[in-house]
């Protein structure tokens, strides 16, 4: 049984009172993500990846089609923000931001339990407890992204939608976040929908991936098959341009061990 299933999902944005303007962001996409799987979603900017991510998160309703989650509690579907600097309320200390979901959803009995749970997750994401008293503006992008991951883990998610979680981070930190996502997947068994425009990053992270173009999911398959035996013309173009880019950026392959 799949954890997330999209059945012929389309999303159309409409604007204008008299003259209607329509933009079809996602066209008839069908996709299944299995429990414990890390699935990659690639495509150029404007291809509909992020919209699909929001549909998968339930932040948006589809214009047609159906989104089905294999979880009973919607809190089990969580997202990681693209911009770690904006993921936390700048007026709240990190400690408050981490305690807030536990208190709001009444997930733990007392303060000690709360502290213990937060301590465990900080340990998992590799951040010291001294950051709890700091404001988001006093931490680096990598630290904030780790803390954002820790915060969603407090809710025991079964599906994590990571929409370009490393875009705003430098290369070594990107590698650390990818490693952390794999650790989270291994330790908690949560499925991850990993959205990125970077083929190398996706290749280093997932086993199975899909490529989006013009709102359509043009090809889905194992990542090595997509790279070595692309079937769709757009996949061939996407892979060729990514590989050509890698010639100019050999450090990418060194950092992620992919290519």
């Amino acid at each position: 049984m799949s954890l997330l299933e999209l059945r012929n999902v389309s999303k159309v944005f409409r604007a204008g009172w008299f003259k209607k303007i329509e933009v079809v962001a996602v066209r008839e996409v069908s996709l299944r993500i299995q429990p414990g799987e890390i699935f990659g979603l690639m495509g150029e900017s404007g291809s509909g990846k992020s919209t699909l991510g929001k549909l998968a998160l339930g932040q948006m309703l589809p214009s047609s089609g159906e989104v089905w989650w294999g979880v009973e509690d919607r809190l089990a579907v969580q997202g990681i923000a693209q911009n770690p600097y904006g993921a936390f309320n700048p007026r709240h200390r990190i400690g408050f931001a981490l305690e807030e979901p536990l208190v709001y959803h009444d997930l733990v009995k007392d303060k000690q339990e709360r502290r213990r749970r937060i301590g465990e997750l900080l340990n998992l994401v590799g951040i010291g407890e001294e950051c709890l008293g700091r404001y988001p503006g006093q931490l680096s992008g990598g630290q904030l992204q780790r803390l954002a991951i820790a915060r969603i883990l407090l809710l025991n998610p079964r599906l994590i939608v990571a929409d370009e979680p490393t875009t705003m981070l430098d290369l070594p930190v990107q590698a650390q976040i990818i490693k952390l996502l794999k650790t989270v997947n291994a330790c908690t068994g949560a499925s991850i929908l990993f959205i990125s425009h970077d083929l190398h990053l996706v290749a280093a992270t997932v086993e199975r991936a899909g490529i989006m173009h013009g709102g359509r999911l043009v090809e889905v398959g194992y990542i090595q098959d997509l790279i070595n035996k692309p079937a769709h013309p757009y996949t061939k173009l996407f892979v060729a341009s990514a590989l050509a880019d890698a010639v100019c950026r050999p450090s990418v392959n060194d950092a992620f061990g992919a290519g």
Partner: protein
Amino acid sequence: MIKMSKKKGYIVVWAGLGILLGVALFAPWLTLHDPYEQNLANRFAPPSAEYWLGTDELGRCVFSRLVVGTRMSLFIGAAVVSINAVVGSLIGLLSGFGSRWIDALVMGLLDIVQAFPGAILTLAVAGILGPGLPNMILALTVLGWAGHARFVRSMVLSLNEREFIESARSLGYGSFHVLFRHVLPNCLGPILVFSSMEMAGAIMMAAGLNFLGLGVPVSTPEWGAMLNQGKDYFRTAPHLAAFPGLAIMIAALEFNLLGDYLRDRIDEGGLIDEWKD
């Protein structure tokens, strides 16, 4: 050209505010004479050691009336701005955070309200209601909330797009919690800046209504009312209009500077969103 360092500028702002509030709070102990006591034998006396700012057409001490009037002027300004800020902010929050239809409805209302020339409508309302302190405050708030509402709405719309608000929703927090725990605290700083600048406008507008005789009773010491009475004797006793006018100007300048100061502090301290991006 005189250049003042930022730090010295801040000291001037806080010192000015402290003096204004101090005068308003301790007014009864700072007067030289009873501000209501008439002395017809000593009308239009120029500034002297006994009457620091002279006397008015009824022989009352201008300095004492100006000191006592500080309390009334600041009270009117604070009352008007507080009402405008609370009403306007709530409507702005509702409009920015509510559904599309609520937003369209509120925006339509704002467009209608703000289509009227503000000063003329305030005068008309004050004229219909008649003189008196509550009526004057009501007249000044008929339109004043609209500016706050539009300002807060624009802030909320901008915050709605921010990732920490999306994260808060994604973490399962209810609308009420997101609005009052995440959106409102990020609006408070700018609302304070906006209000302090509005305070200057409210004091000036209240002075204007008093000047036209649409505010507090003539005998009440208030800067605008004093200016109104002083204008008739501007040729023979210019101090009667000059000192209240100067007080209004200083208070307006002070609150504008306070607004600038708070805006600078918020930008520097990263209370809004300038903290990392």
